[in-house]
């Protein structure tokens, strides 16, 4: 039974909705609820949060009945490496400049895939970065330093 739930698609969807909805309702308690005539800032979010909880309960019930599995393969590597390289891009844009940020992002993203050939990826990163510099910095005049001097 436990195993069945661990993989149950709709139960998890329901749980996520309930957590989000409940959090919304709890946080929205700090905002004035108001009345139907003068709705406070808390009115709409509280109603929506309640709705989400209801939807979540329904989905859990449906999941327990239908036992639909989560399909397909997970690329855990992709799930971690892709967002991480995006975060690195954000950090490097502030501290190192456009060129290093973009190079790291492209190489990092490529490393999320299953086939990674360093030479090929470096070539791709150089080409794409050159293209992006030409298009965005020189072509469209975006005001980012190519390299930030320390």
């Amino acid at each position, binding site marked *: 039974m436990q195993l069945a739930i661990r993989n149950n*698609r709709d139960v998890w969807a329901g749980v996520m909705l309930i957590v989000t909805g409940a959090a*919304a309702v709890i946080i929205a308690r700090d905002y004035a609820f108001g009345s139907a005539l003068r709705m406070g800032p808390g009115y709409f*979010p509280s109603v929506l949060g309640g709705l989400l909880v209801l939807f979540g309960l329904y989905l859990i019930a449906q999941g327990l009945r239908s036992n639909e599995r989560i399909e397909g393969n997970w690329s855990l590597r992709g799930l971690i490496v892709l967002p991480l390289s*995006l975060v690195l891009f954000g950090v490097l844009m502030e501290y190192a400049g456009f060129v290093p940020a*973009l190079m790291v992002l492209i190489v990092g993203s490529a490393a999320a895939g299953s086939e990674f050939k360093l030479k090929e990826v470096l070539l791709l990163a150089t080409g794409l970065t050159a293209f992006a510099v030409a298009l965005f910095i020189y072509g469209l*005049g975006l005001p980012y330093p190519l390299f930030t001097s320390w």
Partner: protein
Amino acid sequence: MDLFQNLIFGFGVALSWQNLLYCMIGVSVGTLIGVLPGIGPLATIAMLLPITFNVAPVGALIMLAGIYYGAQYGGSTTAILVNLPGETSAVVTCIDGYQMARQGRAGPALAIAAIGSFIAGTFGTMLIAVAGPPLAELALKFGAPEYFSLMLMGLVAAAVLAQGDIMKSLAMVALGLLLGIVGTDVNTGVQRFSLGITELSDGIGFIVVAVGVFAIGEIVANLGNPEERSVFTGKVKGLMPTWADFKQSVGPITRGTLLGSFFGVLPGTGPAIASFASYMVEKKIAKDPSRFGKGAIEGVAGPEAANNADAQCKFIPMLTLGLPASSVMALMLGALTIQGIQPGPEVMVTRPELFWGLIASMWIGNLMLVVLNLPMIGLWVKLLKVPYRFLFPAIMAFSAIGVYSVNNSSFEIYLTALFGVIGFIWIKLGCSPAPMLLGFVLGPMMEEHLRRAMLMSKGDPSVFVTRPISLGFIIATVLILVVIILPAVRSRRGEIAG
């Protein structure tokens, strides 16, 4: 006569060399991403939005629209040659299109798909020109209750008609509405759900959500399922369909165009639904339905006309009411807002060059697609051989630059990464994030209209059913729910009983 004058004015705008160039870029990029599986118009438009900052609003809209309908053309090329839908709308085209290609009739299949799309596009464009102005005039009379009911109908229709589980789609709409609330409440100045983060006081950026969920989330999902592509290696010989092909296609193209236009105006129905409906109709009325699935040209002509008509008609609610009927239209609205134009029925009067210029350019764009694409099929086939491992780092790079350049903010990059993870999880749990994006766009507007309507009526909720136009929308909403949910419940009961 007004219509003609307006159209001539529109062509005057669209035929300036800059706008022709933007149209050309738009449809070329659109075809390109249409041909390539794994990247759709939504992610592309989101990535390219920042490029449009420096372009005049008309040019920006013309280019973005070109990407959208260009993708519908490109999607069929991949479907016919590779048996892989380049866009979701081309799923149906695979069935008979690929069979035609295997019988050495790839040329006629591609040609009829392009011709069908062109006819449908022309009709859709005319429909916008004819129906747009009266609709906008009607919309000018709308008050807060009408807008709220209309949005409610749109969101419910979007959730109900989208593929997949209805309850999940409705839940995703509600989740989107909630996300849209994050930020400063316009009426009271209260910070809602901003968790003390200053960057969140302006709300979550639209592009952040769109790129995060649709570009990043999709890539993560794709990496888990490596695709197999076997490009059709046979020569594409003889492009021209025979006279018999034409005669067989006239009916399906006409019916597909009408079906697509109908579905196009409905919110939430992607082009996939229109083309699927068209395929079912053609199969049903065919003298010999067994030909379908074995290379029947009707199975290509009808659905391709339907999906292009749908794509064009999706512009009607966007241009006349300022309401997005699909997530791509939500992005177009975003583009207008960034340009400082408040979308709505007033646009047609205050910025006629925008409305009529866009309409004229759509017809020109459709023409370009037919003339340019057929000779360039060889090039598109070569492009299909670009492996995904080169493609997705490029998508990442453009996405990142696109998001960053909106507010020059690293925080929004981090948020995009977060939405990428969230989007991936929802995709895996069988919840399509598209309804969420619609809810996200409409959330703040809906709350605002709800509050205003209640103030108007002194807290009496009957205001939504005592005003005739609003009542009409409410009845339509209930009807949609009843018609769709009842059979679903019945069949589920049947399942349990069986």
